[in-house]
């Protein structure tokens, strides 16, 4: 309880409050610009926080995360282009509403449902993270190893790409994490004589490359796309009739989003898709979905914002990122010397609760920013790509350089951007690569510790109940769907033969 208040009082510093407000505006700007999303925004701003104290630094990153996730709805509704992938389902009903002159009402619903989703999920985070950390406190290295394997296996289900490609990209990230001096044996690996590589490949240049620079190349392939913004008079808060129609959807989607967010690696995009589909399934008028249904916007927006809070639960309590953006925040925590995990709630509880309070504060702030500033932010949606992306490149390069003040990091950022672009082109998500890079070091360390602990008899891990549960869950995640499909297709073929 003392930590709860200490965390709150840390936020009362006027300087931090100002930074959080500025970051809220910045986050809304990032989310409103098509092509830039919360992950890219956090990755680009990470170098700016390097010289700061951990509390304001992480407060800024989490603020960008929450605000950008909300602001994706602005472009989704006004120009039919989701500012973030998590708002893709908001386009389905938001844009048709805007076309029939109800842009303000659609944005009002998006703002309210985002705020409710965000606030409820942060309260859940405040309750669930210490509980989860309490359980994880009993984990030994083999349990952590099994948990990390489970977290990596969840990468298989990221996005709509092939699970094989996702795992392959994750494994590539883990391989990149082995570059540098092996901490257990002090042997150099894959350093090619570069002194800068002895400490390993930095998270920041790779993140900037795969999320920022690769997007520049994606934008280069879509230059012909013309965007037209629908005019909006003013944002309009939902009427009591609107609330009556949508409150169940908002609560359901908030629950879905928080749960999906807690699952390792699954983020706001998956949450919004499930939230939208469930809103449609439970609706009394499902035929209106896709034509401008208010429930569709509520279902999608409440889910994607609540996923942000949920995603921070495993990130802080277990050190396993709950979403792509949380992975970048995790990298930020590590750079600032904060080790996420169960000990965070005993050794640095004030810090953990300061993050929670920041997220709560941001959800309140973006409600007002959204309410009074949406019309202004709507204008930035039409910033020419010919100005935006060269500027993003400049920020990316300087950001990559600034962390270690090394030109090698600039090369790594550009190289990662090019690799990331071709990965995306051939159906590989770059998110598993980033998460693999972050978790790779931890995975190897835990495996090494487990081998020492179990006297090199790795199979003994299967005799430990918690490990076994995580390994079974991993098998279920990786092979459950194909096995289910095989079983189902066999049964249906037997049925058709019988007939």
């Amino acid at each position, binding site marked *: 309880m003392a930590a709860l208040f200490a965390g709150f009082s840390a936020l009362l510093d006027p300087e931090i409050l100002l930074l959080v407000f500025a970051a809220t505006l910045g986050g809304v700007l990032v989310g409103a610009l098509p092509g830039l999303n919360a992950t890219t925004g956090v990755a680009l701003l990470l170098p700016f926080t390097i010289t700061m104290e951990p509390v304001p630094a992480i407060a800024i990153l989490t603020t960008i995360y929450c605000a950008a996730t909300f602001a994706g709805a602005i472009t989704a509704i006004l120009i039919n282009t989701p500012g973030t992938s998590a708002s893709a389902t908001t386009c389905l009903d938001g844009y048709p509403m805007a076309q029939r002159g109800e842009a303000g009402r659609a944005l009002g619903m998006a703002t309210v449902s985002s705020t409710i989703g965000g606030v409820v999920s942060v309260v859940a985070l405040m309750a669930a993270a210490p509980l989860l950390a309490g359980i994880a406190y009993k984990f030994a290295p083999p349990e952590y190893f099994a948990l990390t394997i489970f977290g990596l296996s969840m990468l298989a289900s990221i996005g709509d790409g092939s699970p094989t490609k996702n795992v392959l990209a994750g494994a590539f990230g883990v391989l990149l994490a*082995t570059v540098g001096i092996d901490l257990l044996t002090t042997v150099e690996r894959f350093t090619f004589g570069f002194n800068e590589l002895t400490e390993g490949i930095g998270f920041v240049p790779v993140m900037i490359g795969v999320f920022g620079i690769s997007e520049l190349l994606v934008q280069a392939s879509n230059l012909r796309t013309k965007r037209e913004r629908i005019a909006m008079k003013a944002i309009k808060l939902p009427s009591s009739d609107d609330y009556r129609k949508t409150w169940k959807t908002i609560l359901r989607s908030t629950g879905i989003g928080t749960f999906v967010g807690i699952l390792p690696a699954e983020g706001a995009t998956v949450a919004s898709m499930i939230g939208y589909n469930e809103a449609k399934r439970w609706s009394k008028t499902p035929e209106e979905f896709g034509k401008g249904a208010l429930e569709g916007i509520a279902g999608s927006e409440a889910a994607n914002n609540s996923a942000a809070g949920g995603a921070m639960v495993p990130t802080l309590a277990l050190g396993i990122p709950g979403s792509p953006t949380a992975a970048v925040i995790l990298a930020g925590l590590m750079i600032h010397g904060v080790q996420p995990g169960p000990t965070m709630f005993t050794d640095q509880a004030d810090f953990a609760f300061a993050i929670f309070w920041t997220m709560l504060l941001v959800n309140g702030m973006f409600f007002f920013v959204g309410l009074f500033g949406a019309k202004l932010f709507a204008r930035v949606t039409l910033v020419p790509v010919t100005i935006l992306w060269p500027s993003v490149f*400049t920020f990316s390069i300087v950001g990559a*350089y600034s962390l270690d003040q090394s030109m090698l990091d600039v090369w790594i950022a550009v190289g990662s951007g090019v690799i990331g672009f071709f990965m995306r*082109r*051939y159906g590989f998500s770059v998110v598993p690569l980033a998460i693999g890079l972050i978790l790779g070091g931890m995975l190897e360390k835990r495996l090494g510790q487990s081998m020492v602990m179990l006297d090199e008899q790795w199979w003994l891990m299967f005799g430990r109940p918690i490990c076994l549960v995580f390994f079974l869950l991993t098998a279920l995640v990786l092979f459950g769907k194909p096995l289910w499909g095989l079983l189902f297709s066999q049964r249906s073929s037997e049925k058709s033969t019988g007939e």
Partner: protein
Amino acid sequence: MRGRETAVRRAAVNWIVPLCIIVFCACAYFLTTEFDRVPPILKRGMQPADFPQLVIMLMGFLALWLAFVDKSTAPTPLPPVVYVSLGMMAGFLGLAQVDLFLALGVFGFCLTLIWGDRRWWALAIVAVVVPFGVFLLFDQAFDIRFPRGLLTNLWYG
């Protein structure tokens, strides 16, 4: 004709991408065999090459799976502007050896031009205003020291 082209492209994607990954894995595996080995007393559970080799083998297996089981659809051909942008990135890396901010300005100017924007103020923003603004921000606010070059020497003296 177009259908045939797509089929050829799809076949190329289905074989060339896994092949590239397998070649990469083979090279990486070879490199791991060159890692120093430590005496059993120091290895603490694993030799330095063990873990990377395990990951590389997993990647190799998945690449084979990709080639024979998990077939992909062919991506649409890239417009020439993407190749030009890629080439400009290579040029940027070369010019950055002379001066980082000169390279950023030239890259921004050329990219905006190649992407079809010829308005002078747009070119001025990306070539001068943004690089100079970012330089000032990082130099003054974050105390970052940039590598010396043609332009940065003017600032650092």
